[in-house]
């Protein structure tokens, strides 16, 4: 990004693998935080969807995860950095259909479980770095509509 776009808000969350009791609470907090901004409902909804997917991945497959939420004037930046088994073939995991999504969820454009393609589809940018036996790092960006139109 050429234009200077400083991070104006940062909050770090911890997610614990296997903690089904609290699964979904981080995406809820994110939704709550974003609702305090005078921003578009669609981007809030997308942020909630991708963070829930990523959070569930951690709860289902990883041991623990540090999740960082950063917001700047151009958009939302989510980083999920987990300690877990890692993904042996990121390319395969990113292929469409490699998810346990229900029919209706797929119709609406996202899935459950290892729904990396869906995170990719629902976000504006996704980068996955994974080391087997160590962990996975998801770098997700969503742009505010105003920022998109300005950039265009």
């Amino acid at each position, binding site marked *: 990004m050429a234009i200077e776009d400083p991070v104006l*808000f940062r*909050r770090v969350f911890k997610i614990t693998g296997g903690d089904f009791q609290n699964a979904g609470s981080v995406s*809820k907090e994110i939704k709550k935080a974003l*609702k*305090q901004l*005078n921003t578009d409902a669609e981007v809030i909804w997308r942020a909630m*969807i991708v963070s829930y997917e990523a959070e569930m991945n951690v709860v289902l497959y990883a041991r623990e995860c540090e999740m960082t939420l950063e917001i700047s004037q151009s958009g939302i930046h989510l980083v999920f950095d987990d300690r877990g088994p890692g993904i042996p073939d990121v390319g395969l995991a990113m292929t469409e259909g490699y998810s346990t999504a229900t*029919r209706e*969820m797929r119709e609406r454009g996202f899935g459950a479980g290892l729904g990396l393609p869906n995170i990719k589809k629902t976000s504006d940018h996704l980068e996955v770095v994974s080391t087997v036996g160590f962990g996975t790092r998801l770098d997700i960006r969503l742009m505010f509509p105003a920022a998109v139109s300005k950039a265009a």
Partner: protein
Amino acid sequence: MLLEHYSHSIMIDRNLCTGCVICTLACPVQAIRVRDGKADVVKSNQCIDCGECLRVCPHQAVRSMTTKRQDLTGYKALAALPSPVIYAQFGDMHTPNDVLLALKGVGFDYVFDLAVNCEMVFIAIDEYLRRNAAPRPMISNFCPPIARMILKSYPNLVPNILPIEVPRETAAKTARRRIAEDRGIAPEDVGVFHITPCAAKVVSIMRPVGVDKSNLDGAIAIRDLYVPIKNALNNIGEVEDEWILQKSSGVGISWAIGRGSVRGLPNRRTLSVTGVKDVIRILDDVDAGRVEGIDYLELSICPGGCVGGPLVVENKHVATSRIEDLIEQYGVRSRVDTRKVVRQFEQTYLLSSSRFHAQAPEPLDTDLRRALEKMSRIEELTSMLPGKQCGACGAPSCRDLAEDIVRGNATPSDCVFIRVKELEDACAGHRDGAES
């Protein structure tokens, strides 16, 4: 529609309030604060009228703004439309018809069995689902706090709100017209009142969401009529034919409990969820597309459905069992003429005149940069506060206090721990000063 002059279903009596923060902690949308030792619904546009505060206050300081008996003056005729919950309030000895007759004895010229309208609504829901394939699930809008919650927190689900008129409104419309004709009086001279298990209906009558104007004149709490009805029940003798007021089957009566829709819509995939926490959870799931294959989602804010309303007398489990008995007794075959209801549906008589619009919450700041700065400040303050979530500052959590501070409605020294620290520091400073 903007809710101007939004009035509330509850009022907190400052003389009885001890500032104990029990309601503050219980409110699911964090609308209450204790300020200057008294609780107040300071975030009044956040309140969804769930009645949780009414339920938990140990000092009877939270009052429902329902119509009181002494306010029933100035009408030429009075009509009562009681929630079917009323049938479960007086034990096994009294039939629904007895209860309706007793209600008449209490001073209403006309009493209608609202459960009939509930049956009509089930048919209308079925018809709506048949004619409209999407969206799914449709979400019931009969419990007023549900619609408020969706408009405030789930803008994506606004199109899923079922546009069928609530039974009490269609019943009131019909009752008013019929009584006015019957008596030859003006429709506005007829007082039409809902007998209610919750205070939420009061707001839906006084300040309806989406609907232009309510057909009801007010709502009276079931518990305020409990004693007079009980007394009147003792004086009911043999019931003659013309005194049969109860016209519904078990289908309409089932409206009083959660899962009522399962009986009312046997051919649909339905889901019934009750209680504020579970309702929030399911709405989150529906919002995120995680609920599949459900046509109709019936939501009630009260645990167990309307039998769990804050203004009832009977224990909700006992009441549920009584309703279940009545369902069995009166059968699950609707007594309502389906064809007639479908005709009414086609004439849009049963469609709600509501137009629902999402209500965005008040942002921290309209400017994104400033709002984000404020959010950072809230984070910073939250980490400075002790995190004991004690409520002693009058806010429901440390984070809420931090937000209040940033919004300019509180100061850090409202936190007792910070204040003690400040006082200690002041004393230490004083001592140091004295020693030197």
